[in-house]
């Protein structure tokens, strides 16, 4: 049982903690990559979050809340890292990592590029909200718990972020409609 693993890790069992990481690592990494849009920085953020989780694991009151707790740690580290990155790169465009070249019936390559650009323009908290909502499927109340903000604030920011992403695609569509291209 995972609860047993968490409790063993709380008693200092490093192997148990590594087992917990193995079974959750992919999902955590995916979350970090989607917030940060960079696999290297996602890897760094995940490592930091896991080491902090290990260090502070004994402060976790309910072992059944381990997953939510680790997601919270990771999300907050990603937000902080994204803030630093925004300050550092200012207006420089961040290099795409593993850009998708797939074209499917829902999103074109142009759509994806526009979404990526729009996503990077969002403040880090809004990026995290979108990922928690649309990748992990969290409800606003759950996102509120992760980010430590009121649910009403989360709904408002979710609305703003979603609208910003929608606007990016609409702008792209308008360009195409008048005979141009989005790039």
């Amino acid at each position, binding site marked *: 049982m995972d609860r047993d693993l*968490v*409790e063993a890790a*709380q*008693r*200092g069992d*490093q192997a148990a*903690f*590594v087992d917990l*990481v*193995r079974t959750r*690592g*992919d*999902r*955590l*990494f*995916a979350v970090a*990559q*989607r917030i940060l849009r960079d*696999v290297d920085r996602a*890897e760094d953020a*995940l*490592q930091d979050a*896991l*080491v902090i989780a*290990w*260090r*502070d*694991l*004994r*402060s*976790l*009151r*309910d*072992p059944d809340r381990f997953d939510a707790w680790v997601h919270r740690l990771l999300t907050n580290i990603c937000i902080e890292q994204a803030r630093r990155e925004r300050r550092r790169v200012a207006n420089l465009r961040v290099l795409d990592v*593993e850009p*998708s070249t*797939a074209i*499917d019936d*829902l*999103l074109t390559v142009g*759509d*994806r590029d526009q*979404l990526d650009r729009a996503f990077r323009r969002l403040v880090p908290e809004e990026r995290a909200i*979108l*990922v928690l909502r*649309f*990748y992990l499927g969290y409800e606003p109340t759950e996102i509120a718990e992760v980010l430590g903000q009121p649910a009403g604030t989360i709904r408002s920011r979710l609305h703003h972020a*979603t609208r910003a*992403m*929608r606007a990016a*695609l609409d702008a792209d569509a308008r360009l195409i409609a008048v005979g141009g291209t989005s790039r």
Partner: protein
Amino acid sequence: MNQRSDTDRMLRHWLSDGPATMPDRVIEVVADRIARQPQRRSWRFLGRLTMNPAFKYGIAAAAVLLIAVAGYSFMPRNASNGGPGASPSLAPTVAPTLAPTPSTAAVATTSPSRAAVRCNFDVVGCAGPLTQGAHSSAHFLPGFSFTAPIAWVNSFDGQTNYELDSGGSSYVLVWSDVAISQHTATCEPLKQPGVGNTVKDWIDFVTTHPGLDAGKPVPVTLGDGKGQVVDLQVKAGWTKTCSNFPGTSVQFIMHAKGTDRTYGTYGAASWVKLRLYVLSVAGGTVLVEAYGTSPQLKTIVSSMRFTAPR
């Protein structure tokens, strides 16, 4: 894609595309890093829930709920010297353990060097990493001296609590102004009714506690401190918990004075074996607890010499 549902669907689709496998090296790096990263103990600031507002902004010492965490026990070779027996050692480090939570106060007056050291609960006043050799408490009352092995850290030195850490999972915690606490599900520090505070009261309480397995108490003398030492462990069938700590535990220590309710309660988690020294010093009761596997615990505790105020 003009409707909200389309936008939601689009975002789900877009976010689902991307790397979804953690690189193998993350496991290796994390395993390596946690091997060098001691876990923090479960320090709690229960007092924030109950303290008088006058104490909110840091007037006394640090507010804590201490729940013991450690691994393996140690057995006495010579209880009259107060020392735990030898057991496998953990690699010590010189890094002090710093609590993540904010402090409630600085500890009394500190020397310039001590003022620069961040202690548990982010307060100041402790000595930090200790040189090998003789040391004394600076703020703890009653004062005491001891001999520190190499690489140990004084991570807290307040008037009623003093702590020495190996940097790993071994530590010595000294308490004054103590009272026997009830075990409460909320970790609320409530005095055990009808129980006194002498060495005998303490020993009688812990040796008859339904949640504790206790060894045979043995007389001990540490300078002017005279009392008994006993080994304790939570019984396997004990089911009570404290909401601030995972798993079962037994809480039985708190500070006696009302103002020191901010210190919360202290106890032993289910996997802990601890050695508890209960000493009478100048009419007051002092507790010394030793946890962990380091054989250096014996050196430290057996060298402690409490000094009654003259």
